């Protein structure tokens, strides 16, 4: 990696606030207009309020107002035992719930200094990668819908159903799966699991090709997404952006390769990167990620080892005093859990480092100078889930 200067002062645009409060300055120049994309809006993917300062059609600055979905998950964690808190983490990024659970279980396992057995790791990897595909499919459908292509939404949701069926058969839930436990998995794979996963992989490969056929070379899609929402690698690293957004800006970094967890080092897969850091590159990166996830699933499902699925974890989980930070590569970026234990059965502090929260900060930089219609496209391309932003 070349020299990446991390110097916020050198950011092409500064993160300044909109300064609505200063009484001396007139809020409205003759050309400036402050418009509210309110919490209720078809395209903000949840309850997000974006205040735009416009000059005609051009965006001069934005300010995001979040917190509409804040449920105090971190406070709740302090009043639940470690195992009881596990279902709560699914509700944060509810689109990709399995990843949340994986991150939390891994963090607590690290605190307990146990490792999940190999079979559990393989099951975890398969379910997590399926969940990555499902999350990217939902992203693609909604992002295309915001830009105006209404058909990919139905295709991706239809194909996502197959993944949800597998989840339902495995752990009983489609959305908030609570698939893993601290120490491994609770449920064995059901009869026919491998066959169904293999069938799914065969089923969905041509579907991904279909999505690409609809959009990748479409002239209108290219015009709407190329050079829209550009963020350079330096800005991305300075802003702490992770996940496909960072990779599309050219930084080849994926936690599954850089700091492997849960047996990812056993699998071969590529890390896609983009060149320009625009919306089109993010789209391409996510499409390739879907295919690479299929590759991982194929490798994993052919080789699930026999053995226990749960490590030796005491019935009452009381980690020794200490603190641990562990993060995984969730579909949206680096999802981290900072767990502080005081030796009792309830965590002393659980801090969730949400990728969408940090990525959303970059919205301001990415839409400066763009037109209003691009704001919607950029919010879509950041792939935020308000449940995770607000927790």
């Amino acid at each position, binding site marked *: *990696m070349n020299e*990446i200067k*991390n110097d*916020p*002062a050198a*950011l092409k645009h500064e*993160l*300044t*606030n909109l300064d609505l409060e200063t009484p001396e300055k007139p809020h409205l120049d003759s050309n400036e207009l402050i418009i509210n994309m309110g919490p209720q809006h078809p395209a903000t993917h949840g309850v997000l309020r974006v205040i735009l300062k416009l000059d005609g059609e051009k965006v001069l600055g934005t300010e995001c107002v*979040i*917190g509409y979905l*804040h449920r*105090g998950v*971190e*406070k709740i964690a*302090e009043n639940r035992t470690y195992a009881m808190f596990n279902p709560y983490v699914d509700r944060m990024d509810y689109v990709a719930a399995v990843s949340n659970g994986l991150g939390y279980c891994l963090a607590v396992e*690290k*605190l*307990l*200094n*146990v490792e999940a057995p190999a079979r559990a790791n393989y099951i975890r990897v398969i379910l997590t990668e399926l969940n990555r595909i499902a999350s990217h499919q939902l992203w693609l459908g909604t992002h295309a819908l915001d830009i105006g292509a209404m058909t990919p939404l139905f295709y991706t949701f239809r194909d996502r159903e197959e993944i949800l069926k597998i989840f339902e058969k495995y752990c009983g839930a489609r959305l908030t799966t609570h698939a893993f436990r601290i120490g491994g998995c609770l449920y064995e794979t059901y009869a026919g699991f491998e066959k169904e996963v293999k069938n799914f992989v065969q089923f969905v490969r041509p579907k991904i090709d279909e999505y690409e056929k609809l959009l990748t070379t479409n002239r209108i899609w290219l015009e709407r997404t190329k050079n829209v929402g550009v963020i350079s690698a330096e*800005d991305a*690293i*300075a*802003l*702490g952006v992770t996940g496909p957004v960072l990779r599309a800006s050219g*930084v080849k*970094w994926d936690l599954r390769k*850089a*700091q492997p967890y849960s047996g990812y080092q056993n699998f071969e897969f590529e890390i896609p990167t983009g060149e320009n850091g625009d919306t089109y590159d993010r789209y391409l990166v996510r499409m390739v990620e879907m295919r690479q996830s299929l590759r991982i699933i194929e490798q994993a499902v052919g080789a699930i080892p026999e053995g226990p699925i749960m490590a*030796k*974890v*005491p019935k009452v989980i009381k980690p*020794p*005093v*200490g*603190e*641990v*930070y562990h*993060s995984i590569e969730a579909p949206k970026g*680096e999802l*981290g859990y*900072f767990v*502080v234990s005081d030796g009792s059965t309830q965590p*002393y*502090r659980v*801090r969730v*480092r949400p990728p969408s*929260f*940090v990525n*959303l*900060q970059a919205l301001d930089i990415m839409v400066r100078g763009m037109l209003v219609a691009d704001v919607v496209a950029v919010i879509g391309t950041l792939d935020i889930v308000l449940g995770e932003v*607000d*927790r």
Partner: protein
Amino acid sequence: MVEESKTPATPPEGAKTGAPTPPSGSEKPAAEVSPPAQPSSGSNVAEKAAVLATSERNPATSPATTTKPPAAPAKPTGPVPEPWTAPLVEKYQHQFGSGLQAQSYLGQNYFIVDRSLIPNFLKLLRDDEQFDYCVDITAVHYPKREKQFDVIWILYSFERNERIRVKTMIADGETLPSSVPIWATGNWLEREVYDMFGIKFEGHPDMKRILLPEGWKGFPLRKDYSILQQDKEWVQINLGIESGQ
């Protein structure tokens, strides 16, 4: 690692109470044999550990006779923070002396620094040691301590592929210099720390609440914050009664 994950096995002290019942069948292969075998070796933990280890491997000791071991377990306390030795650490220990400690717990390395070191140390980490990605900024509240808040920066370096934490402790009411000039990520992260804990960061461009509505009173993630106080307040104002509970 076996010791930590097991439920506490009896230490020598348990036998000192002279309890007639064998503290745990796994202590010795012949568990029914009287306790006198146990207190013989005062507090030779290592020997006991060896005994424990061997008895673990002996399936015959599967306790048909286990009863609850008596209390006062001075079990091994698990992994402890060890000092972290690395060239990085040595360099800064020379520079900052006692204001900086470096420890490592379960393989994760962190610095504990004095509050006075804060913006400079972080800047040095970013500029000289290529910790260009600020993963997270968070805080923990220990109400019983004199310096109640732990503020933690989690940093990552792409070149070194290394993640460290920098921890500092401040008292209630103290402020910290903002790290926004160093990493732009800090903007919302510090706002959230302020929102949840009430720790202000000086030099932050926009120090206001982020997740909670603007007029919110109190800082939720503090340990002395209770939702009941909101409820009581509302109920007192609007319904004129003492408490809704």
